[in-house]
């Protein structure tokens, strides 16, 4: 009797104790303290980088996507998670999520990955106060990716997988960094990054758009001016005379080779215009999240062919399988590498 009552109490406390222990306080990437459950079940992504990173870490709890995935994007995602609904975005440029809709979804965590500047800290504080839902802010800078994964793992109770993904990223980053370090300054290619159908929009020095290109040791020809995105003239590009052009625009990549105005640019003459893969998420530029990791191999191979002998097909297969939870077929990988989508 006594024993059984004790056992009963013990059983109750076993049931109750984790529930109490569940609420844990964690310091997020902006130095804010958030109280989260030990293991999250319903996570609301505040923007595209958060959605992608959370999908790679804990797909089952992702409530949906800032923008619904379409057509060929779905081929590379888990069929059930990839088709979850469009939720709009809470931060970034414009705020399309209705807070009442957000409450109805009953998230146990709102997650934002990106800038930890004051604007976003105050947005997080405000939304958290209004909704009573913990709002964690993670630093989305490229060189913080492993650290951000580990923190993300603690916030969601997914520490083991977060450690695995963080290690993978650290290894890729350190491999690339050490190989690039062996290239003397005069052998670093001068790269122009082209956006827009005319190819005249570019990322200036230090902009998030060219973060990985600059990380890979390339000399951004527009890097003399610091800033974000800007338009430049074709004359200026001719004056820079870049050796390599990296673009995300299919229309530009398709037309530039036959365009007489571009014929004088060295990269075009040498056939070194490269269209970046973009399926299901871009390899260069946006969204600024872990989707840029395979882009390092891709950039390494086109900037320093002899230093990066790895087979891009198997690198792609491994990354997609591990991060996107779906093994792509060889034709699908070819589709990705051609930059189609």
């Amino acid at each position, binding site marked *: 009797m006594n024993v059984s009552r004790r056992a009963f109490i013990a059983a109750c406390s076993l049931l109750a104790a984790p529930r109490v222990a569940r609420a844990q306080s964690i310091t997020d990437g902006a130095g804010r303290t958030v109280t989260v459950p030990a293991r999250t079940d319903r996570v609301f992504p505040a923007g*595209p980088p958060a959605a992608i990173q959370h999908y790679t870490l804990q797909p089952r709890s992702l409530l949906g996507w800032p*923008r619904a995935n379409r057509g060929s994007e779905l081929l590379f995602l888990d069929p059930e998670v990839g088709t979850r609904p469009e939720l709009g*975005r809470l931060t*970034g*440029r*414009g705020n*399309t999520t209705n807070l009442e809709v957000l409450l109805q979804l009953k998230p146990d965590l709102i997650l934002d990955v990106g800038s930890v500047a004051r604007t976003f800290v105050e947005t997080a504080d405000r939304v958290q106060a209004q909704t009573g839902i913990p709002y964690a802010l993670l630093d989305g800078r490229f060189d913080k990716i492993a650290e951000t994964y580990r923190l993300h793992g603690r916030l969601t109770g997914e520490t083991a997988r977060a450690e695995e993904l963080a290690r993978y990223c650290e290894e890729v980053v350190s491999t690339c960094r050490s190989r690039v370090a062996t290239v003397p300054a005069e052998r670093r290619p001068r790269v122009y990054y082209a*956006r*827009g*159908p*005319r190819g*005249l*929009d570019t990322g*200036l020095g230090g902009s998030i758009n060219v973060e990985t290109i600059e990380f890979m040791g390339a000399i951004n020809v*527009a890097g*003399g*001016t610091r*800033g974000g*995105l*800007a*338009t*430049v*003239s*074709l*004359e*200026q590009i*001719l*004056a820079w*005379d870049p050796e390599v052009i990296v673009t*995300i625009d299919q*229309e530009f990549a398709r037309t530039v080779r036959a365009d*007489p*105005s*571009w*014929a*004088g*640019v060295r990269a075009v003459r040498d056939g070194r215009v490269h269209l970046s893969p973009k399926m299901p998420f871009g390899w260069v*530029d*946006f*969204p600024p999240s872990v989707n840029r990791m395979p882009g390092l191999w891709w950039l390494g191979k086109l900037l320093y062919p002899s230093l990066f002998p790895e087979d891009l097909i198997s690198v792609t297969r491994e990354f997609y399988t591990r991060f996107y939870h779906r093994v792509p077929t060889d034709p699908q990988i070819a589709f990705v590498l051609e930059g189609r989508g």
Partner: protein
Amino acid sequence: MSEASTVGDAARERGVRLVSGLGLATLILVAGVAIAFSVGRFPVTLGDLGVALWSLISGQPSGLAPATEAVIFNIRGPRVVAAILCGAALAVAGAAFQGLFRNPLVSPDILGASSGAALGAVIGIYFSLGIFGIQALAFAGGLLAVALVYLIGSAIRGGDTVLVLVLTGVVIGALLGAGVGLMKYLADPYNQLPAMTFWLLGSLAGTDKSDLLPLFGPVLAGTLVLFALRWRMNVMSLPEEEARALGLATGPIRIAIVAAATLVTAASVAAAGVIGWVGLIVPHLARFIVGPEFGRLIPTAALMGGGYLLIIDTLARSSAQIEIPLGILTAVIGTPFFIWLLVNARKSWS
């Protein structure tokens, strides 16, 4: 006797003003072209330009570097031509609308041409169309917006027709502006939104030879129609009762003027994006020099508008490694200039 000599003096004075006005405008334009060709991010000397032009005339290879030739014929050349055409188009349309509406504060976008074109362009960007598709939608958007304003404005009976038209233009313009806002809100923030923002600020950075014909055709046609209507436009800028009393059927002529001015505005906005100020300031400057008579005003405004936008665009492409949007430059340069005009040239509007 004395009366006749006064009339003769007035005619002579008008002649002097016309010659000096056109002369000044032509001078600005020619100087602008010379500067525009010799200034830029890629080094091209006037000698290179001469050699290239000679090879074009003689058919002999110029021996210049392919990049230099590309700059002259494919990049800087088309851009200089496009800047002149757009500036001329906006100035002529501005002069026509200011006369038609008898209001010095009117600019070419008064009836919604720019807002319609802007909405067309952002829709094109939203659906990831190519360059031609975006420009075609912008052009169509400008024409449709003005057609809509005109239909609604003429359907409303009673009151001052001109005032009703202007008010309808303002209202529809605001609605189209909301449409632009909606497209920007829905756009992908990484790719489409910057493209829309850049387009709306106006730029000739992407100008290509293939853009010139779709620009030149409508601008020439519209300007010729306006010039042909110059006498009627003089009468139209009188109060409507006086124009009617002089036996002018104001309705059809108003349609013709609006259609021609809209055609040139829409073509310019489709090619260069939204560029404010040129259509507002240049007609004032032209009127200040040659007076309000349209036979003199239209060619002067066209030449001065072309020269003005050419100088602005030369600054836009050569002052920094990155392009400065035309909409920003025209406003920064235009505002103090306009204030100066208001202070010094109040007599010009008469």
